[in-house]
């Protein structure tokens, strides 16, 4: 084994630069203008004006409160739904079946999910149509403000529907820890009900593994833009979409105020995280005092049914939403209150495919590029760290999660400035680089577990035959991990496809992807076109995951041990 000499290896340095660099630069680029310093626009002295202007904006408090409450409520609700469902059903057939639904739902981009959900729950949406006019007497859509209700309920539901699959899959990965199954048995053999065993025995052990993802969800949900634009209230909007509006305003002087707003957003997300940590401590100590009281809660059928319902509801709503995207994009005319379109047409879809071609092309190039780089970097990092026998340290993990723990808007404003100076603003390369910051953490998340589970003796056996490190990597480790590597690529491509804000900010309107198009079209007039673009968003993840399933099946068709268990 080569000695490490205490020097970090190349990929560690590279990844640190890739992640921490833009974040720090972006933060600096946000903080300075927030205090009035933006020499490019001729502001070269510090002042409190941007903040004064910000706080004089009408409805600012409401906007901030909306962001805070919808984000935090959605995150906590998502976590509760996931944990209750896992507690009540882990290891059952129902659990397995729902797992099969939830994994693909994770790859549906936020914007597409939000558009589908709007089609489902709007007053003229599918649910109302189903019961109209025979049950409601409505021949015209009722005059209710959904989505866009002033309390942000629709937006919260939209966030929950998207965060539940994410947190669920994180929990699922955590349940793969050794002995979890035995701990469940141990609890039951001591007379404990399923749910009591989960909360008293299993959760305390796996919670550290799902904590960072939960924090990332909070940071994301309190600063989300695309879902807020599609489902959120409009008078006023939550903070994040308002900031984007100011940032893109032709009046350049609004940029200083927008930067000040971005700092407010950082503060807001940070306080949401703090409130969550407080709740966590409270719940933790509540649970700890109950560890040893012997209460077994063996009569749990009502609790289990209660824990299943929200999960079923989410899976059903999400599946219906995606199906509605398909129906709407094929509908020629679909007047209220008909449950299905009166006339269908393929022509519109073909037209839109043609006009959407360039944006789909850009999406593909960016997604494939960012995914390939992120996957390769992750592999490089894991191989180098494995070779240096460095275990994943908490510091490394926190660093990798850093871009996800900050609200995107907090440092994208500043980053946009740097990209502008570097001549990357509005270029495919620029957008790809910006995506990479957010794609890499997910690639690492998806691949580090399979990599660490790979039996190290394969590599040792290969090395002992005299194979070089590179040969071991390319001929042993990479083929053995072909499936997880391809899945990682697919996850990374899906994450890239779903990016809205980085594309909007760095693309500067010149790089347009299907996601930015969908969000722009969602508030427009034509439901068909909006549905079509939302559907186009699904193409990249769908292709990616199909490839990840197909290639290993073909490559290893004569290798029994390489097939998936279960």
């Amino acid at each position, binding site marked *: 084994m080569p000695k490490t000499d205490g020097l970090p290896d190349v990929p560690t340095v590279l990844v640190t630069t890739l992640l921490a660099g833009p974040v720090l630069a972006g933060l600096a680029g946000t903080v300075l203008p927030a205090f009035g310093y933006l020499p490019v626009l001729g502001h070269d002295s510090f002042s409190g004006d941007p903040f004064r202007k910000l706080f004089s904006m009408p409805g600012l408090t409401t906007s901030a409160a909306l962001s805070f409450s919808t984000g935090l409520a959605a995150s906590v609700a998502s976590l509760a739904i996931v944990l209750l469902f896992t507690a009540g059903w882990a290891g059952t*057939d129902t659990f397995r079946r729902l797992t099969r639904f939830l994994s693909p739902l994770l790859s549906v981009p936020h914007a597409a999910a939000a558009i589908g959900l709007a089609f489902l729950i709007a007053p003229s949406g599918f649910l109302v149509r189903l019961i109209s006019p025979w049950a409601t007497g409505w021949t015209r859509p009722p005059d209710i403000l959904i989505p866009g209700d002033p309390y942000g309920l629709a937006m919260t539901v939209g966030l929950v529907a998207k965060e539940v699959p994410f947190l669920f899959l994180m929990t699922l990965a955590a349940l793969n820890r050794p*002995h979890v199954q*035995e*701990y469940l*048995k*141990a*609890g*039951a*053999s*001591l*007379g*404990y*009900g*399923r749910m009591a065993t989960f909360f*008293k*025995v299993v959760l*305390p*052990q796996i919670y550290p593994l799902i904590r960072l993802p939960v924090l990332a969800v909070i940071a994301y949900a309190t600063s989300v833009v695309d879902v807020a634009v599609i489902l959120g209230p409009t008078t006023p909007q939550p903070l994040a979409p308002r900031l984007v509006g100011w940032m893109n305003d032709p009046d350049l002087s609004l940029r200083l105020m927008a930067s000040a707003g971005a700092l407010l957003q950082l503060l807001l997300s940070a306080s949401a995280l703090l409130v969550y940590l407080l709740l966590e401590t409270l719940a933790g100590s509540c649970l700890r005092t109950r*560890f*040893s*009281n*012997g*209460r*077994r809660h*063996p009569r749990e059928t009502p609790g289990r049914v209660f824990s299943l319902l929200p999960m079923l509801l989410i899976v059903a709503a999400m599946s219906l939403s995606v199906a509605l995207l398909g129906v709407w994009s094929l509908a020629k005319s679909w007047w209220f209150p008909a449950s299905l379109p009166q006339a269908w047409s393929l022509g519109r879809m073909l037209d839109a495919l043609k006009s959407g071609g360039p944006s789909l092309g850009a999406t593909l190039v960016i997604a494939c590029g960012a995914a390939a780089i992120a996957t390769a970097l992750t592999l490089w990092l894991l191989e180098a760290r494995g070779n240096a026998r460095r275990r994943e340290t908490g510091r490394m993990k926190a660093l990798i999660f850093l871009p996800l723990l900050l609200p995107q808007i907090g440092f994208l404003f500043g980053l946009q400035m740097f990209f502008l100076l570097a001549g990357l603003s509005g270029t495919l390369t620029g957008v790809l680089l910006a995506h990479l910051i957010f794609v890499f953490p997910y690639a690492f998340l998806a691949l580090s577990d399979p990599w660490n589970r790979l039996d190290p003796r394969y590599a040792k056996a290969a090395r002992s035959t005299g194979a070089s490190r590179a040969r071991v990597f390319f001929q042993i480790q990479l083929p053995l991990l072909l499936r997880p590597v391809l899945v990682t690529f697919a996850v990374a491509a899906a994450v890239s496809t779903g990016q809205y804000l980085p594309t909007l900010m760095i693309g500067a309107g010149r790089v347009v992807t299907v996601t930015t198009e969908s969000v722009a079209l969602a508030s427009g007039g034509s439901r068909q076109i909006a549905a079509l673009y939302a559907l186009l968003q699904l193409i990249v993840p769908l292709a990616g995951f199909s490839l990840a399933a197909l290639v290993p099946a073909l490559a290893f068709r004569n290798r029994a041990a390489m097939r998936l268990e279960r």
Partner: protein
Amino acid sequence: MSSSDRISGLVLENVVIRLGGLPLLDIDCRILPGSVLTIMGESGSGKSSLLDFVAGFLKPDFRAEGRALLNGRDLTSLPAQDRQIGLMFQSPLLFPHMSVLQNLMFALPATCRRRQDRQDLAERALADVGLAGFGKRDPATLSGGQQTRVALMRTLLAEPKALLLDEPFSSLDRTRRAEVRELVFDLARKKGLPVLLVSHDEEDARAAGGEVHRLEAGKAGNGLDC
């Protein structure tokens, strides 16, 4: 109602376990209170599935016929937590987020309500296996033998009516092994618990003193009658 409904002890009545339609093992026997039935077999012979069947954890791919009765009560359709069967695993499986004492208090029935009483009972259980004063310790700092002893007391404090042992001594070295094994069988005898032991170690079988049955790997229809 057959005669086994009135018999004390653990009765396995015409139990057949199948995997994918193929019979893995069948067994028909009765374990009296305080006695041990040892089942020997290589991995893959179905011995773990038998334990899973009795304890209520049989995986959905397995199909089982027959009944398991404990002191006349049919367990077959009961959920695992209602079966009153104590289980010891290959590893001690102490809960790593709790202290040694909390592990034991976890097992005490909730009918004992006062915290002080619960602590006293748990301390006494520790003292019973020669571990007085270990209550505050992190289970991870205990030796393998000490952990197994704590695991044994955790199992017994839940007041089970039968014990299932899934090679619980396999993680111990030779000298500790005999010692811990004696302790387990001794306590089970004192409490009058029927014990079903699964092992592939001849010494375990000899020390258990009861009947021994051997399963052969992959052989269809491992028939046992006793």
